[in-house]
């Protein structure tokens, strides 16, 4: 039985996981490496030494996950959800402050970020709700409950001022879509985002309004001229114009100054390369200077000498880019693409709706982290402080992603049994 369980685990995924974790570890050492000090990668005083402990702990966590009874996860979903919500409420009160944010719960010198685990628990809760007998995706009440499930932790994390992690929860909308929700909401969201960015890029908004008006007119003139149709098109044009008009308001009144700057940096990093453009500029310089083959392991100058901020955590991709060049970044991007495609594959082979929904939850969380993190280091997305899974330094993030992934593998390894039981 035991041997069977282990051999049923998806070893392709595990292989990718091990490669990523190992590469992450070496790169964390490269960031802190100082030739003069001559400290080794094992040194516990360095991030690399501590990361090794985190990696060791992850292996223990993996074993626990594999040993645990299968039904635990489904049964535990709501309880765990309730527990994590309480923790998230408590964090601002009893948490300790790290880097200006109260997002950490400390037990002695040891700290964890509940928000990292909230992603996992939320994925479980969403999956469980979707798997409820009688659940229908096009039922409005069901949809409302789902949005509540992702909205509650998101709001609490927003209160901790951790916008990046909060935004991760929006990616669940993709899961809802995959499980049958109408794409209307996604199209609406993506459309608004596109218009928003266009507005930022086009210096004079009059052109945009004119463009909208011309397109609306063309649609009206080309189609059948029925009153209801004209009304709908006009309404749509007005809505789009409303989004355009709201951009300035959103930028200057809703977003905080540092968030405004991150948007500005994305549009034009050269406007103030030392101020808000610093992160993006330096990050691109570090990655860009790697060339095709890279400068070699431990040979990077940009990441080593602190030109790039948050190098071992959110900007770890810079070290890869600088020291291993395009070859290295190509490999890392390919590994992520492989992992994500594998998760889609795992999701699609489930017969059980709970596992399937959970697998898609895992997928969208990884996808969000992957695109946003790498996108921000090369200037395609605004700077949003979220880690690159398995590469970034930090226990909470490594464990959070490990749990997320291996619970999926555990569930997947029992896919045959579940079928029998039904």
């Amino acid at each position, binding site marked *: 039985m035991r041997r069977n369980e282990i051999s049923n685990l998806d070893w392709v995924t595990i292989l990718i996981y091990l490669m990523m974790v190992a590469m992450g570890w070496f790169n964390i050492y490269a960031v802190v490496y100082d030739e*003069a000090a001559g400290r080794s990668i094992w040194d516990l005083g360095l991030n690399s030494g501590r990361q090794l402990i985190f990696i060791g702990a992850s292996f223990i966590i993996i074993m626990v996950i594999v040993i645990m009874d299968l039904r635990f996860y489904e049964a535990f979903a709501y309880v765990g959800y309730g527990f994590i919500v309480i923790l998230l409420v408590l964090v601002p009160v009893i948490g300790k402050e790290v880097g200006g944010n109260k997002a950490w719960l400390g037990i002695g010198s040891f700290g964890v970020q509940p928000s990292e685990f909230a992603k996992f628990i939320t994925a479980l809760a969403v999956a469980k709700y979707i798997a409820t007998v009688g659940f229908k995706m096009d039922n409005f009440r069901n949809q409302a409950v789902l949005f509540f499930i992702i909205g509650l932790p998101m709001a609490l994390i927003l209160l901790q001022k951790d916008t990046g992690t909060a935004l991760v929860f929006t990616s669940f909308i993709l899961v809802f*879509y995959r499980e049958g929700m109408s794409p209307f909401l996604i199209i609406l969201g993506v459309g608004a985002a596109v218009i928003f960015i266009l507005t930022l890029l086009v210096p004079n908004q009059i052109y945009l309004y004119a463009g909208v008006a011309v397109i609306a007119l063309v649609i009206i003139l080309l189609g059948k001229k029925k009153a209801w149709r004209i009304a709908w098109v006009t309404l749509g044009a007005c809505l789009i114009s409303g989004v355009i008009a709201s951009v300035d308001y959103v930028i200057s009144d809703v977003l905080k100054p540092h968030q405004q700057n991150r948007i500005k940096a994305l549009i034009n990093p050269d406007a103030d390369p030392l101020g808000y453009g610093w992160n993006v500029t330096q990050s691109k310089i570090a990655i860009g200077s*790697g060339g095709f083959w890279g400068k070699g392991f431990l040979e990077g*100058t940009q990441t080593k000498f602190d030109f790039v901020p948050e190098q071992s955590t959110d900007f770890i991709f810079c070290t890869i880019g600088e020291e291993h060049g*395009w070859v290295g970044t190509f490999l890392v991007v390919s590994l992520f693409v492989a992992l994500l495609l594998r998760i889609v594959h795992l999701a699609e082979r489930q017969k059980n709706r709970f596992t399937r929904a959970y697998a898609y939850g895992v997928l969208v969380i990884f*996808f969000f982290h992957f695109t946003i993190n790498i996108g921000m280091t090369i200037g395609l997305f605004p700077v949003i402080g979220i880690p690159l899974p398995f590469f970034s330094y930090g226990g909470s993030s490594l464990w959070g992603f490990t749990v997320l992934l291996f619970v999926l593998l555990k569930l997947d390894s029992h896919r045959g049994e579940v079928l029998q039981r039904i």
Partner: protein
Amino acid sequence: MNDARKHLLNVLVVLAGIVFIVKLFFIQVADNKYAQLADSNALLREVEYPVRGLIYDRHGELIVHNSPEYDLYVVVKDTHPFDSARFCHVFDMTREQLCLAFRELKMRKEYKPFKPTLFLKQLSNVDFAKIQDRLDELPGFFIQARTTRSYSTPSLANALGYVSEISKEQLARDSLKLYRQGDYIGQSGIEQFYEAELSGTRGVRFKLRNAKGIVQGSFNKGKFDTLSRPGLDLITGIDLKLQQYTELLMKGKAGSAVAIEPATGEILALVSGPSYDPGLLTGKDFSANFRLVSADTNKPLFNRALMAQYRPGSIFKIAQAMTALQQGVITPDTRIRCDRSVIACHGRHTNEDLRGAIANSCNPYFHQVFRRMIQKGKADDPFTDSHLGLAEWHAHIESFGFGKKLGVDLPNEKEGLIPTPRYYDKAYRSTAWKFSNIFSLSIGEGENLVVPLQMANFAATIANRGFFYTPHMVKAVGQDGKPLPQFLERHYTTIDSSFFNVAVDAMQEVVESGTASYRAKLQDIVICGKTGTVQNEPPLKDHAVFICFAPRENPKIAIAVYVEDAGFGGRAAASIASLMIEKYLLGETQRPLMEAYVLAGKFD
């Protein structure tokens, strides 16, 4: 429908991967801008400026040396906390001036907040002493010492040239990338010509630094570092005493005086008047002074000795005589009647031989000599004949160093002009010209143009009886060095050496009993010379010119003096030249009256 959605997710994932890989390819491989930016981020290039070479006169007298000067640099990133009140106090500035200085700093193209940038330049010794101790109260600011040129004498300005900040155009032309903005470079004279030798080699050390600008050690274990090598000293052929004395004599006059040692081609004195004090074009007040000097209507920056192209006048008759003898159209004994109906003349003489014609500067004689050279009867058609004659004549004259750059070690030398047949074809827009159109050349008027340096070289050539060394300022590059190789080569004229004795005899007669007999003659030294009086637009007086060398045997000095608007050449120019010879060969002048006459500068 569900299958489509599964594919959509796969497509999204692959699409994101492709976008990243393509974007990364552009950043990392296609665009090497980032690699350069990374270097300028992390590489600190420390430049060690070598000391610029010194310039001496022929006796080891120091002419140009270096004195320290201090530039204030700033690394803007490191200036926090910046106490502007303290800064203004230390540097004696107003708040507005400070703000302006910072704004200008940030406007500069090469400005990087983490790089040392020039903030205030050329602080004097006094300023430096005042701020030195208080500099540690101002983080991010530091002093870089460099040297500036100092001059031990107000003489020789045009020959020395000056040193100033490299211009944008020069920077663009510097294909080897030896210079950077803010570097100093020789701008004219010796400073420009010998820039490479004087400036030495700068040392560069590459260091790695972190984002805070703190040095983290040498780059690649110092593999790319170079040591600085100081610039070479230059020993010029200038006799500083003679130079200073000549400048004194030329004071208040426009023109030029050049003295050459015939045996070596070393320039003993090079004077262009009016001149300026080289001390003006150095140090902090350079810009203001430069504007004054360059706007001066007397054009003190214009080095007449090599750049002013004058008609040579009667001194040219020596060259005519030599060429005619070489071509065999006359002998020393040929007598020609002074027929003043063809061309005006002066003095009492009627039918001289060559020696007498030179001593009396007989115009009709040389008119006839030139006719014989130009119209030899080699062709029936007088036009073709003149073409052939002029071409042959031109080759001989050019061998004296006329009509082309001599190749002196100073920039901006002018060629002068000795007309060729082609020149007249162009000027007349036809080949239909003959001797009667060009006869003014015979007496050094007409289209002939010669610069004073060529005149002095001409005197040296006669002194040497037929050859010259290219005149040069620098006799030794480096303390025990040699001149540049091209200055060790003899250039022979196309004239037989024996013919020159006729010229030497005649020139001795010029000084002893001819046109220069009263003022140029010295008691103990045999001077050979030739006067010239170059026509000028009335009512201006004619230009005075005199070439000479002395002593007759084994000559030590050859001189050309050209004084604009000074009348008869036997007066102004001959007096100055003879005083120079006296000063150089005897050390002192024993003719106070003559000195006073020259200094008064009336020449009536």
